[in-house]
């Protein structure tokens, strides 16, 4: 009862709760979003069959040499049109052309909007001028499955039937058409991307790099890609994680400072309590209850707001990232516990000072 009365209208306690809220929610947000980014980036090719890829100018002969390499299993060469293919009123940021949509689907883990759409699209690709679009692109352009659209790139133009839509984390392609028509309608000559599977992807990659020689390319096995991604993301996340310790340190200093100010302002009141019989043991209990309660309130508010904040972030960004975060409640609980621990630790000095207090000096004069 006395602890709750002491907390009422106490600005230092309010400031501590605010400090805890700000610091803990920052720590949680950084940790959760950081962990998510790490998972998200290294999880790009999860479920995709490809084990390596080459990004660069490759002619037919180049692709055939790869197909003949020892241990190679599947080779999927792709034509790429970056920001050059007009489709009605929009320009595709990236259109790719393949002669094997079935392999393309498995290599890049395409998820079709409807169950039967994939087999239909594969079948149509071999027969007619057809196009599959990413769900985002379909929505953006306002097209529907079955629509006939005109593709044009300055070299030529022709009508294509939309036969499917998909989502994929392994590629940011907006549209896919059959290779044969990319060559005949739009003058595609060299491949720009090639995905492969092999018994020994590393060995194939060494040979691909040899084939490129000094030609510009960006070729990686999936394993190399993931290692690069972890390293790059880690370079950003490491200082951010370090910042969480700094934030907690700042909060701890602020909270300890507030508790000391609170003690200075309450010295006389503590002395009054002691003069009517408050023992040191009771004072310790009262101080710890105050600290624990303010720590709990600050931590609870921070954890709740952080949870809602993170949910909001992923709700807003959800359609773009097609992956939900795995919220590790250990992160929330440990951040909250850390807040309580800081306030409890911060109350040690006021407790020691209260014990050493000279009662008469505090209460004799106003």
């Amino acid at each position: 009862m006395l602890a709750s009365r002491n907390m009422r209208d106490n600005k230092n306690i309010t400031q501590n709760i605010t400090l805890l809220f700000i610091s803990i929610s920052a720590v949680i947000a950084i940790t959760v979003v950081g962990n998510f980014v790490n998972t998200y980036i290294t999880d790009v090719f999860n479920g995709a069959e490809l084990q390596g890829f080459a990004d660069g100018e490759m002619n037919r002969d180049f692709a055939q040499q790869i197909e003949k390499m020892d241990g190679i299993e599947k080779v999927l060469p792709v034509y790429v049109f970056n920001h050059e293919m007009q489709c009605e009123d929009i320009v595709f940021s990236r259109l790719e052309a393949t002669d094997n949509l079935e392999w393309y689907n498995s290599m890049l883990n395409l998820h079709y909007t409807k169950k039967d759409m994939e087999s239909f699209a594969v079948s149509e690709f071999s027969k007619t001028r057809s196009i599959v679009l990413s769900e985002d692109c379909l929505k953006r352009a306002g097209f529907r499955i079955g629509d006939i659209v005109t593709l044009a790139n300055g070299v030529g133009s022709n009508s294509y039937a939309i036969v499917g839509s998909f989502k994929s984390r392994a590629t940011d392609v907006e549209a896919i058409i059959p290779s044969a028509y990319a060559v005949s309608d739009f003058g595609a000559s060299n491949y720009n991307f090639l995905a492969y599977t092999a018994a020994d992807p590393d060995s194939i990659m060494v040979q691909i790099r040899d084939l490129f020689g000094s030609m510009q390319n960006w070729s990686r096995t999936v394993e190399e890609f993931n290692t690069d991604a972890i390293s790059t993301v880690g370079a950003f996340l490491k200082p951010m994680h370090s910042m969480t310790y700094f934030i907690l340190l700042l909060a701890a200093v602020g909270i300890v400072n507030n508790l000391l100010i609170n003690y200075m302002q309450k010295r006389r009141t503590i002395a009054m309590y002691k003069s009517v019989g408050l023992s040191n043991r009771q004072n310790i209990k009262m101080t710890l209850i105050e600290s624990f309660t303010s720590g709990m309130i600050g931590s609870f508010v921070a954890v709740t707001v952080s949870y809602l904040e993170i949910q909001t972030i992923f709700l807003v960004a959800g359609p773009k990232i097609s992956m939900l975060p795995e919220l590790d409640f250990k992160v929330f609980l440990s951040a909250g516990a850390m807040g309580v621990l800081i306030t409890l630790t911060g109350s040690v000095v006021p407790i020691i000072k209260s014990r050493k207090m000279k009662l008469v000096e505090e209460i004799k004069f106003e």
Partner: protein
Amino acid sequence: MKSITGNIAIEGKNIVKDFELGNTMTRVLKDVSIKVLKGEFVSIMGQSGSGKSTLLYILGGLDTPTRGTVSMNGIDISKFNDEKMSKIRRQKIGFVFQFYNLIPNLNVEENIMLPLLLDGKKARDYRKQLDEILEVVGLTDRRKHTPRELSGGQQQRVAIARALIGNPEILFADEPTGNLDSATGSEIMDLLRAINRDSGQTILMVTHSLEAAKSSNRVITVKDGMIV
């Protein structure tokens, strides 16, 4: 002999108190001995710096003597640890200060009940006692007010009620009228006198005021750290 000891509310023997001021040690009380009998109303007078308040605080257990003993009911309390001393303050002693020393965020009732609450007692078991004491100090209609909503005289009445709620064996008062105007001061002294007269409450009071001291049965004068 047994009956005399049994009649003593508090006794200080050969009390010495030294204060360190910088590098200088100052002796504020010089081998002071004092007895207060049960039911007595004793005033301690003396000039500023004479040591009278220090004597009161040592006898009341708020300070410790450098040497000497303080006995309550024949038991030396001067060496008690914090836990035991706090219990004495809750159960055996009531204190009234010049500046009231009420807890600002507790209302009148809560301030009065504080020693009982700290002693682990339940407020609801002491409603009758609270009502009676509020009646005695004339604050029945102010029971839910906080100290800042009361006048100085009313605050001092609350302090007196708080000091008396646990039926203490002795009430210590350190210049209880020192912060009040003369009319209010007289009212407070009338109240203390009535409490002593009607319920036999032992009171030991420090005062500068001769007028206030007239309320007591006995006056002790302290000069230069000694009783004269």
